[in-house]
């Protein structure tokens, strides 16, 4: 069964980030043979003075293809892990949603969208989780992280939000790879120009310093921009951070 796992607010300014927590959880699921996990996505939430985030208010989410009998094990392990490992002074939250059993996924998606634009409350998060049959739990401090954890799950469910954590290593920066090579060597599924054009397999792409992908239409997508220096006749280059910030 497919399960979405969202976490938020596990860190403080000096500790390991929430993304690392998500990575460790996903790796543990696989090491214990409970299932297979996708890469972690980062979802930007609303930045406002009323929200006590550490530095950037983003939550992390991954998909686990789990054996049916392992759901309770996952929840128990994740809960203990967050309780024990989250930074002192943090407010960790955990959300686990079995995708096919969410009673009204559109409400979960709506909640995720709201959390990008306005301040939402813990009460709203808990009410919605209960209504939809989703696990939501807090593991320290104020437990404020349940909001981001639930929102992250809702946003991942859209298939159209977030950047994948980490970078893709294909060739060193400044080298050229074809779309076919990029797809063969990574879990990137589509290479797309920022205007939406899908590039063909033989199209060459100039690789930048950090090759990062985004979640679009439920796929891992590498976005490319028109190359600034066309002297070597390569039309496309991987997008710089200024284009990826909005994802």
């Amino acid at each position, binding site marked *: 069964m497919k399960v979405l796992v969202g976490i938020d607010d596990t860190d403080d300014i000096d500790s390991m980030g929430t993304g690392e927590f998500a990575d460790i959880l996903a790796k543990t699921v696989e090491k214990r043979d409970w299932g297979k996990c996708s890469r972690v996505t*980062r979802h930007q939430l609303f*930045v406002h003075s009323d929200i006590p985030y550490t530095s950037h208010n983003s939550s992390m989410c991954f998909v686990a293809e789990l054996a049916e009998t392992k759901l309770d094990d996952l929840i128990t392990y994740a809960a203990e892990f967050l309780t024990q490992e989250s930074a002192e002074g943090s407010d960790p939250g955990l959300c686990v949603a079995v995708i096919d059993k969410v009673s009204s996924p559109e409400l979960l998606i709506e909640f995720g969208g709201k959390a990008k634009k306005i301040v939402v409350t813990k009460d709203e998060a808990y009410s919605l989780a209960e209504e939809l049959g989703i696990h939501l739990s807090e593991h320290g401090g104020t437990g404020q992280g349940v909001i981001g954890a639930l929102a992250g799950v809702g946003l991942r469910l859209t298939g159209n939000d977030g950047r994948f954590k980490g970078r893709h290593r294909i060739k060193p920066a400044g080298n050229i790879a074809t779309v076919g090579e990029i797809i063969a060597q990574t879990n990137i599924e589509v290479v797309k120009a920022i205007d939406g054009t899908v590039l063909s397999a033989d199209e060459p792409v100039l690789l930048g310093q950090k090759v990062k992908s985004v979640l679009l239409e439920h796929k891992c997508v590498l976005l490319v921009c028109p190359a600034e220096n066309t002297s070597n006749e390569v039309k496309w280059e991987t997008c*710089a*951070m200024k284009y990826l910030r909005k994802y």
Partner: protein
Amino acid sequence: MKKNKVDMLKRLKVIDGITHFCGDLENEADFKMSCLIGQACPSFIVDVEDEIYSEEERTCTNCRFRRWTNTGFSCYKRFPV
């Protein structure tokens, strides 16, 4: 150096007792100022890769101690330059 300091102070505003960098980071001059502050800062530590704002590494926007706000960002180390 003095001009840089003056330019820097123009972009720093105190809001509810906390100093914020309130420049427009899409503006080249404002972004450049965030780089100058980062380069001069004794407390600069680069943030985790997934929170990097710019390929220009040494800028407040890439620092572990910057905290994004709806007007720009504040600094956990209070901009110690």
